[in-house]
């Protein structure tokens, strides 16, 4: 009971702040939390990245295996994206098979990578119709302080950009860097009344789950969108979201590229 009351107070506080044009952590409405990316932290994975988006932490590991292609794309590699919302990451996550939230998370991240054609899947064909590379992208949430979606997207593409295809281990040629052609960036906003709040924190989400994710590629084309949450969205507000998301994505892509350049020199 007292917990419910606390929740109510928190929600009222967040709401009143937003209505007066402020966020509880002092950010501007269109401001992301600080982003910190570390790559190659899991030596046993072919690629990996740990991202901190404020206090939200996600780790993504990429494993490469050889398998059969799908019959309708015999000359293309395969991407399999999976997300585990392990109970370590939040008091509300329960052990068990993936629920609708982790499935949605994995599928939206997957679509961003797939539809931006970030990975050149044709270069992952070893023998047409017989053998192709399978990319397992495993999203592992560590600390859910809000906006796991964008954190996971950034971690996934960062891990992919640092993935080495272990061809020599499987005796199918020399190792090579996974061919990554694009950096899709998802931008998730919380809709509160008629306000758009990017990169919502967990506390901010106490006002509701009205989320919208728009992923765009380096040419500012939209590659994936997802309305998530039980709410109705005004058409004009959606157009605002489109413009906002594309411009924020550009900014985040710059930050990410800079971080990854910095990271090349060492683990940290």
């Amino acid at each position, binding site marked *: 009971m007292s917990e419910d009351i606390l929740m109510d107070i928190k929600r009222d506080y967040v709401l009143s702040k937003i209505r007066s044009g402020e966020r509880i952590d002092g950010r501007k409405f269109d401001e992301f939390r600080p982003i910190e990316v570390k790559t190659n932290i899991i030596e046993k994975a072919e690629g990996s990245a740990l991202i901190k988006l404020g206090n939200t932490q996600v780790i993504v590991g990429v494993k490469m295996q050889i398998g059969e292609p799908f019959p309708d794309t015999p000359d293309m590699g395969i991407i399999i994206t999976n997300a585990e919302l392990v109970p370590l990451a939040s008091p509300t996550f329960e052990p068990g098979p993936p629920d609708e939230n982790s499935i*949605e998370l994995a599928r939206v991240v997957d679509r961003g990578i797939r539809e931006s054609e970030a990975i050149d899947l044709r270069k992952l064909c070893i023998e047409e119709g017989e053998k192709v590379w399978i990319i397992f992208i495993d999203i592992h949430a560590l600390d859910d302080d809000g906006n796991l979606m964008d954190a996971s997207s950034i971690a996934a593409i960062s891990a992919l950009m640092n993935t080495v295809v272990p061809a020599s281990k499987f005796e199918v040629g020399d190792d090579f860097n996974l061919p990554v052609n694009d950096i899709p960036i998802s931008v998730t906003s919380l809709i509160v009344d008629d306000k758009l709040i990017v990169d919502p924190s967990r506390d901010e989400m106490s006002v509701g789950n009205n989320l919208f994710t728009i992923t765009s590629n380096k040419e500012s084309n939209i590659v994936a969108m997802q*309305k998530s949450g039980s709410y109705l969205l005004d058409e004009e507000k959606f157009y605002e979201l489109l413009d906002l998301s594309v411009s924020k994505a550009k900014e985040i892509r710059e930050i990410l590229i800079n971080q990854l350049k910095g990271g090349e020199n060492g683990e940290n």
Partner: protein
Amino acid sequence: MEKPKLIINGKRLDGRDFEELRPIKIQVDVLKRADGSCYLEMGKNKIIAAVYGPREVHPRHLQDPSKAVIRYRYNMAPFSVEERKKPGPDRRSIEISKVSREALEPVIMKELFPRSGIDVFVEVLQADAGTRTACLNAASVALIDAGVMMKGIITSVAVAKVDGHIVLDPMKEEDFYGEADLPVAFLIRNDKIESIALLQMDGKMSVDEVKEGIKLAKKGAMQIYKLQREAIMKKYMEDEEKEEV
């Protein structure tokens, strides 16, 4: 698999214009046991929707003391697709069920039915691109048939980018080979589109193309909305006639 040409002489492979829907057929009250039901065809899609409730929720700890709990189950029959689908929910159905439920939840007047449950079950008997939108259209009619109070009607349609053109209501080949797919659902009230209840997209489109797509979807939705209304009216009139007899 070579990508075929999808637009030939300004027409689509099935002869449609860019802004043309596939043929739609809607029948209300097709099931006896359900509280409301609807059969809907949209091109080769064949959909049946049932609504149960408001009814008691078991077990009790799933009840919400302030409002009705909505469930939405999108399910494909094993024989609905080219290659037999293993029965039971897969990841795709679970995601579709989630976003569809979230489209209906803000429209159903849940507060009128505290502690109760409203279940929307939709079976895809045959699938041919756009099943999630066809299902929502059927579900929406079934909800009205069940007498569930709503703020309006949900009408859903997809647009796609195909060989560089924005087209309405893509069928299977366009979905598979096209550049982008954008399913959307609207809340319509007083014959007017009020807001967006579902929106997803995958593929590649410019911001302007997305905006163009939404405008086109609105046109399509208004046509579907008329058919939904007609189907409901038809049933209502039949009921009236029966009562008069």
